């Protein structure tokens, strides 16, 4: 009994809702708007596919397709060759890795050997029983020689650059020569 009452009430509410429709000012306008929106959606899908279609249109032109595929193959080949070559070079390089120990590399033995040969020659050339010069003394000779050489070169350059000085020195040297010849 109770259920029948509730059912009746429900049916009445539904009836009221059905009869009380909203007042549309321009129902045709809304209808047109909905149709337009649906059409636009279709158009959008069409643009993307058109773009993809045009982007890859080259695949239908034989010579372009072949050229691009060729270029891609060349690119891959160049890449493989270059990277392979670099790997090979790096492998070769690793064979040259050495443990130097300290930063300053000492003079190769061949140079010592040469100097040693010269040493042998100098002792052979020295008069028999002649007095040997100590290492320290030889070192001093070299230092003096080096300094002298630098100073001599500088002196020559200064003289060459100054004609008056050059003339003066030449005169002096001539005078010295004359003096010697007098003696």
């Amino acid at each position, binding site marked *: 009994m109770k259920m029948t009452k509730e059912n009746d009430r429900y049916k009445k509410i539904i009836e009221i809702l059905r009869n009380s429709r909203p007042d549309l000012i321009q129902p045709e306008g809304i209808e047109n708007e909905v149709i337009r929106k649906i059409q636009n959606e279709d158009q959008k899908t069409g643009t993307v596919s058109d773009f993809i279609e045009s982007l890859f249109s080259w695949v239908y032109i034989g010579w372009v*397709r072949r050229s*691009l595929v060729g270029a891609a193959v060349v690119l891959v080949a160049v890449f493989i060759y270059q990277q392979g070559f670099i790997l090979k070079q*790096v492998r070769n390089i690793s064979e040259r890795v050495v443990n130097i120990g300290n930063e300053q590399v000492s003079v190769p033995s061949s140079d010592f050997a040469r100097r040693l040969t010269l040493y042998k020659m100098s002792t052979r050339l020295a008069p028999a029983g002649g007095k040997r010069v100590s290492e320290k003394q030889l070192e001093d000779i070299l230092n003096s020689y080096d300094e002298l050489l630098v100073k001599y070169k500088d002196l020559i350059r200064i003289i060459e650059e100054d004609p008056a000085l050059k003339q003066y020195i030449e005169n002096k040297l001539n005078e010295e020569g004359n003096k010697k010849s007098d003696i």
Partner: protein
Amino acid sequence: MKSRKLKLIITLALVMAASCNDPETVVTNIIHRDGSVTRRIEMKSLENKFEISDIQVPFDSTWIVRDSLEITGEGDTIWVKRAEKQFASVEEINGDYQADSGANKGFVRRAEFRKKFKWFNTEYNFAEVINKKMLHGYPVSDFLDKEELKWFYTPDNLNDEKKNGPDSLRFRAFSDTVDKKLEKWYLRSLVSEWISEFAILTGDKTDSDMTQESLKKRENEFVTIVENNIEYFDSLWSNGTLLREFIGEENAIKYKSEADSAASIATDHFWDSFKDYTVRTIMPGKLTGTNGFIDSTGILLWPVNSDFFMTEQYIMHAESKVPNTWAWIVSGLFLLFVVTGIILKKKKSVS
């Protein structure tokens, strides 16, 4: 007179080997991608005495200098001078080499830099080059085989390790063989230099049997004469015996002064005083090629010794590659584009 000069030269050469007051110098080149070079010099000496005339590479007041005092593991005090300078290009380094007033100013040295774009990578090449001292000498490779050449160019401390390590007898014998061959190389080059200089000095004055070609043909003969008389070389040269044996009595008298001058030039080229140092180079990117040695820190290293450029240019060369990331991305996108196109075409033809 000649005898005295030769003795003096030999003595000086000997003393050069004994001299240990020169600063130990290491030159480091840091190469940048734009071709600029940061150059560092580190000089170590037992005395606080660093004269520009003692320094092996160009150095002046434009360098930023830092001095320090260090104690070695053995407890010795050493003075260290560190200098740094930024060079915009190798041309600036070459300018410094040309204006060098240091210990090795008499030697022609230069730096080279080359950059090559190779799409996926850019290749960088850097080299320091020292011109040869003797113009008419023989390449050392004519006297040494591949293994012996390797030994010749290897830093002495590495060879010493071998000579004092396991299998030392074999390495010592090998080292002796190399030394003997090198002595032959010195003598042959010296004789060749003398012949060429003598031919230049005598010029057109000589007969057909005294031209450079005819003298060169008899070079072996002259080398043998010198070798057989090496003990008395000095006196035999000064009294003209050797020259008489080589070019005949009449020519020896006629061209004595030219022969002496040629000998002087040749020995000057041979014994040109050079102070050794070490070159280190740090390249941009991945190191792919070099003729130097690589230390445990990955830095390139070359010993610079006068024997290395006696008869040939000494080229300290390094090559490296830097990957061009943008080129990798562009290439990847291009490949993707082509592959996608082909797949799409296949799909369409199937449907």
